[in-house]
C-alpha cells in the first residue's frame, strides 16, 4: 500500500482547518497512519498542532519558504516525498498552483477537486468528481501504482476530531537542497473596502449570470428597496467579471464570506466556489433550470425566470 502524505497549509502561524479534513481523507485511503508535511519558516508551533492530528509530521524550515510560493514549495516536496506516494492537498488556489506540476515531478498521477473517495483496490483509487460546474458527477479511476497527487474539495470530509495523536515531528530541513526558482514572490495585496458591506446584511438578494442583462440588475435593486433596512444586493463572480457590479459585492471563495439570515440566490447555479462564501442562513434559490445544482443545497427552491419573477416578489413586499 502506498504511503499517504498530507500537505498542510497554514497562515499567520496557525494551521488551516483543512488539516482535520485531510486527516479523515487519508484514513479513507489507507489504514496505516498518514504523514503530514508542514513547510515554512519558523513553523514549530504549526508542526506541533499538526502532530496533535497526525502521528507523523515532517517539518521543512527554510527562509525561502517564508511565503508559500508554490514553485519553491514544490521543490521542497520533491525533496522529501518518496516516489510512489499518495499526496493529499486541500483543493484551493494554492493546490491549483502547486499540485499539477508536483505530480509531473514525482512521476505520479493527478486528480483535482475530488468530492468523495470510494476506496482503494490494488493500485486503483476510486474517487468521485464533478464536472460542468457541478451539473454532473463522475466516478473516476486513478492509477496510483506510481503514486498520485490528490486535491480534496474543502467540506468533502468531516473534520477528524479524534485529536488523539501525539505525533512526532521529524525535521527534514537538511534535505531541502537548492530551492532557488524563477518565480519570485513580491507581496500580497488586499482589496480596498467598498461603499457597501454585504457581510453585514440580514437579507442578501444575490444575482448570478441568470440575470442575463446589465439593465436587469435594476430588478434586484428594486427588491432591495422594497425590503428596505437590512437588505443588500450581492452577486456571483460572472457579474463582477462583466463589471456590472463592484467586486466588493461578490460572494464566494475569491470574494466575501457572508452569513445573512436569508440568502436569495437568483439565477446562480451553485458552484462550490460560490457556495463556499455562504456560511449560514436560510437559502432560497430561484433558477429556471429545475436541475440546477443549487437546488441540492438550498432550503427552498423556485423554478422560475428571475427576470419575470423578481418584479412579482417586489410588488408583494412593497404592498405589505
Amino acid at each position, binding site marked *: 500500500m502506498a504511503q499517504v502524505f498530507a500537505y498542510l497549509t497554514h497562515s499567520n502561524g496557525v494551521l488551516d482547518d483543512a488539516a482535520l479534513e485531510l486527516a479523515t481523507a487519508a484514513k479513507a485511503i489507507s489504514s496505516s497512519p498518514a504523514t503530514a508535511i508542514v513547510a515554512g519558516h519558523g513553523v514549530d508551533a504549526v508542526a506541533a498542532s499538526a502532530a496533535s492530528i497526525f502521528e507523523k509530521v515532517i517539518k521543512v524550515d527554510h527562509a525561502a519558504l517564508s511565503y508559500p*510560493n*508554490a514553485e519553491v514549495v514544490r521543490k521542497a516536496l520533491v525533496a522529501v516525498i518518496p516516489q510512489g506516494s499518495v499526496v493529499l492537498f486541500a483543493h*484551493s*488556489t494554492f493546490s*491549483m*498552483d*502547486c499540485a*499539477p*506540476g508536483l*505530480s*509531473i*515531478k514525482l512521476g505520479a*498521477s*493527478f*486528480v*483535482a*477537486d475530488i468530492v468523495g473517495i470510494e476506496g482503494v483496490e490494488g493500485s486503483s483509487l476510486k474517487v468521485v468528481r*464533478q*464536472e*460542468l*460546474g457541478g*451539473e*454532473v458527477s*463522475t*466516478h*473516476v*479511476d*486513478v*492509477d496510483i501504482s506510481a503514486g*498520485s497527487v490528490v486535491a480534496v474539495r474543502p467540506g468533502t470530509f468531516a473534520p477528524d476530531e479524534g485529536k488523539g495523536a501525539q505525533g512526532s515531528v521529524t525535521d527534514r530541513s537538511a534535505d531541502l537542497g537548492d530551492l532557488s*526558482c*524563477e*518565480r519570485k514572490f*513580491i507581496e*500580497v*495585496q488586499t*482589496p480596498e473596502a467598498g461603499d457597501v458591506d454585504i457581510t453585514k446584511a440580514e437579507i442578501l438578494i444575490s444575482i448570478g449570470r441568470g440575470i442575463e442583462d446589465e439593465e436587469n440588475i435594476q430588478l434586484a435593486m428594486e427588491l432591495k428597496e422594497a*425590503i*428596505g433596512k*437590512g437588505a443588500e444586493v450581492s452577486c456571483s*463572480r460572472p457579474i463582477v*467579471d462583466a463589471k456590472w457590479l463592484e*467586486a466588493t459585492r461578490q460572494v464566494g*471563495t*475569491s*470574494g466575501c464570506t457572508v452569513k445573512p*439570515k*436569508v440568502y436569495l440566490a437568483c439565477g446562480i447555479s451553485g458552484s462550490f466556489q460560490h457556495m463556499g462564501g455562504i456560511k449560514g442562513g*436560510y437559502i*432560497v*434559490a430561484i433558477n429556471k433550470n429545475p*436541475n440546477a445544482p443549487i*437546488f441540492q443545497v438550498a432550503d*427552498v*427552491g*423556485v*423554478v422560475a425566470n428571475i427576470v419575470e419573477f423578481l418584479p*412579482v*416578489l417586489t410588488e*408583494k413586499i412593497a404592498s405589505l
Partner: protein
Amino acid sequence: MEILVCVKRVPDTAENEFVMNSAGNDIERDDLVYSVNEWDNYAVEEAIQIVEKVGGSVTVVTAADADADEILRREMAMGAENGLLLNDDAFVGSDCKGIAHILKGAVGKGNYDLILTGAQADEGSGAVGGMLAAMLDLPYASLVNRVEVGDGKLTVGREIEGGRREINEITLPCVLSIQTGINEPRYVGVRGIRKVASVEIPALGAAELGIDASCVGAKGAAVRKLDYFVPVKGAGAEMLAGSAEEIADKLVEILKTNGGIS
C-alpha cells in the same frame, strides 16, 4: 513576444441541460451547444493585448477532433494570427497529463516566449497549465488576473482567497493560467468570423509532434472516467409550486419567519 494560447471546446453550461445517455456512461453529447472555455477567452484577450503593446503574434492551439476548428476560428477572429489543431486518433481518451504531453509537442514546434492556458475548463481540473510548465521545466503561475510586461520577465498578480492578490515576478519564457475578470474579452461578430473562414489551420498528429503514442490517449491515461451520473438529491430544497403570485406569497412568509422583514 510570441505567445501560444491553449484553448478548449467545451459544452456551454448556459445553453444546455445535461442528461445521461442511454448507456449511462456519459452525458448525451449529440445535441449539445459547444463554445470556447470561458477562461480561455480571457487568456486569448490578454495575449492579444500584450501583443498590441509590445509586438509579436498570438497562436491559438487545441488538442481535439476537427469539430474544434470553429473555436480556433472564433479566437482568430478576436485577433490571434495563427491556429493549430492537434488531432490524432491516438489522442482520444487522454487525461490531463496526456493533453499536457500533446501540447508540449506543439510548444516544441515553435519558439514561444509565453504560454497561456485558462485557469480551468469544463472538467474543473485546472491541471493542464501546471503540468505543461513542469514538463517544459518552465516557471508557472496559476489564476493570473494581472500581467505587466517587463524586461525578460513579467510581473503577475495571482488571485488568491478572499479577493486578495499575490504579486510575483516571473522570468520569461513561462506558463501562466489566466483567471476570468483579468480583462474584457472583445466581442466577435459574424463578419469577423467570416474574415478568417478560409485561413488555413494546420493539423498535426502524433508523428509530426514527435509524441510517443503510449503516453497519450486512453492507454496512457492514469486517470479514467468510469461513468457519469446525476448526483442523488440529498435532502435538497423544498420546491415551491403554484403561480408566481402564490409562490411570491409563500416567499414573503419565509422572509418573515427567517428574519429581516416584518
